[in-house]
């Protein structure tokens, strides 16, 4: 397939943002000469210099905390935390400092920091390299949380996140880094309607609404194709923004289909699916033909790679969830609580 990989699209988006604004600086471990362990920053230090693409000490809290000071000074830091499971040492600086500084200072300090976080599983990595920590950040007031699912959105949303005056947690679905897609390089800030805050209807359908974001969108689209072979029409919606959620298109879809399935890799309990189900139930109660269904990772620590494909929702588990929403025979048939 022609087009640009997800990884290249992120790289091109970073480059565009750096060209547009000399205050944009990149900070992170191994992002300079190496170009990052996933090569997302490949070639940027060579072209922009070591003051624009800063190889930092190996200290996640240090990276986040100094990015705050840089932003205080008028810079727009784009921070890379190398892997999802390494973001926790920086958690205090993210949730107690980055998220709260604008509120704390009654608007005097803006922290336009973009936190790039390769996240999610499915690449056969060791422990701490496959986690989905989005709920921690979406739960935190003051942060915006987004996750693109296509190369075009990766390219455009990266530029939007960097141009945004609020801190943005930018979740990169690492198992999609090598997927390819068409990218219009004219689509960036200033180009009119932009994706970052808006949900996208990835596939139209009429029987079931299937919500996903980041790495699960492709899996859900595959599920929709498989379901159509059985005569079930699934509408797949890509959230793009996890905080805030663009509920308009979601409500419209649920009112149309009356059935809601939510899929994410993160564990189920208090995950984003719980919030989506609660809000859409409140707003679409009389349109629902069945309780919202969640298809998620289990409430286990991220498992070793030989088990991860049992943990991650795949096409079959999503279709099973669709069957539950449609009251068709499914893996829970016969259980009284149906949960």
């Amino acid at each position, binding site marked *: 397939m022609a087009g640009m990989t997800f990884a290249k699209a992120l790289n091109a988006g970073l480059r565009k943002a750096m060209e547009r604004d000399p205050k944009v600086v990149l900070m992170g471990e191994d992002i300079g000469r190496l170009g990052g362990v996933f090569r997302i920053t490949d070639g940027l230090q060579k072209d922009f210099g070591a003051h624009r693409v800063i190889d930092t000490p190996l*200290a996640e809290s*240090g990276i986040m905390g*100094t990015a705050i000071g840089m932003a205080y000074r*008028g810079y727009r830091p784009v921070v890379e935390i190398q892997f999802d499971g390494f973001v926790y040492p920086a958690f205090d600086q993210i949730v*107690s400092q980055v998220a709260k500084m604008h509120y704390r*200072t009654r608007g005097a*300090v803006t922290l336009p920091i973009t936190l790039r976080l390769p996240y999610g599983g499915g690449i056969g990595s060791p422990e701490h390299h496959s986690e989905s920590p989005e709920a921690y950040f979406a739960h935190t007031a003051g942060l915006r949380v987004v996750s693109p699912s296509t190369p075009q959105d990766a390219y455009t949303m990266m530029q939007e996140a960097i141009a945004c005056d609020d801190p943005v947690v930018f979740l990169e679905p690492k198992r999609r880094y090598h997927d390819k897609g068409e990218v219009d390089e004219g689509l960036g800030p200033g180009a009119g309607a932009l994706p970052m805050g808006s949900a996208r209807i990835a596939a139209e359908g009429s029987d079931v609404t299937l919500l996903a974001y980041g790495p699960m969108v492709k899996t859900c689209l595959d599920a929709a194709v498989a379901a159509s072979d059985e005569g079930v029409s699934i509408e797949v919606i890509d959230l793009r923004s996890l905080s805030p959620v663009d509920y308009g298109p979601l409500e419209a879809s649920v009112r149309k289909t009356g059935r809601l399935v939510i899929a994410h890799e993160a564990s189920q309990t208090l995950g984003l699916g719980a919030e989506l189900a609660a809000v859409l139930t409140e707003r679409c109660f009389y349109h629902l033909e069945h309780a919202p269904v969640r298809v998620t990772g289990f409430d286990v620590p991220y498992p070793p790679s030989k088990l991860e494909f049992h943990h991650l929702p795949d096409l079959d588990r999503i279709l099973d969830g669709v069957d539950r929403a449609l009251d068709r025979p499914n893996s829970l048939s016969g259980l009284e609580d149906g949960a």
Partner: protein
Amino acid sequence: MSTGDDGSPIQLLSPHGERRPHERYDALVADLGPEALASLYEDMVVARRIDAEGTALQRQGQLGLWPPFLGQEAAQIGSAHAIAPDDFIFASYREIAVAYARGIPLPDLMRQWRGAANAGWDPFRHNMAPTQVVIGAQSLHAVGYAMGVQFDGAETAVITYFGDGATSQGDVNESMVFAASFQAPVVFFCQNNHWAISEPVGVQAHVPIGLRAPGFGIPSARIDGNDVLACLAATREALGRARSGNGPSYIEAVTYRMGAHTTADDPTRYRDANELEDWRGRDPISRLEAYLRAEGVLDDGLRARAAEKADDVAAALREATIHMPDPAPGELFEHVYAGPHAALDRQREHFERFHAGFDDHAAHAAGAHTEGAR
């Protein structure tokens, strides 16, 4: 690490106010005439009075909490007098005397302790960040700011304050790694006041805290934190090093927290009264008074002027605190985000409608609010 001859903290003033010569530091305070010395004295006297007033206001229910800095006036005022207007300060919650010396308006000093806001002032009006509650977190902000200064090619220095407890935190250690690696123009000013709530400094460090910085490649000085001249000299030297492109410095000011950790703390549960008495003998203000009297700078006139200033500041502080208006209910939702956020905007709208309902009730049935509006 620079120390006194016998490894003790560097002193320019003995506890009895005798001037002690120092090879490097003497030149750094040689310009201090009677006026500058009087100004140091006056600021310390006023700072002590602010502390007393803060404690009293808390006891009277006017403040939610107050973190006393009694005994740390020399460390805070001495270092603050070295800071240039362009320099930027990232301090902890106890650096109230630093904020006062920086010229932060009196109501702004009290706002966060009153609970009217999370922070008191606009950092860019005073080049001082709002004080930090999370222990040591601000040291990284200072280093990042200093890296920005460096990229800008500016001749500005940054200073960060923290206590002995903070030196155990990862952030403070990470900030030293960053500062040394990038040679950032930043000064780490540690007030070793000997107690992190109930934990003595020995729980944080097995060697003098100032010894750590050289391990990071950062020059360090251990000074008497109750000696205002030593504090001023060491901070001037360190800020000068930063401004001239010679990288970070570390200062351990050895002082003592004479009061409680905060007004919610009871130090008699963990602290020996003899220790307190011992430190009372090293009081920073009486030490400066003795020196200034010997120098002929302190007379009844100066004493009276300083006392009068302290009275005025205390009265103004009290007035501002007691009459500080509560924030409007809508402030709850202000400044969470720089731009619109759909989820929060919906909650705000809901809140406003809910709140407006009480107005309707009030209009139609006076007194309904106090009896419940439903």
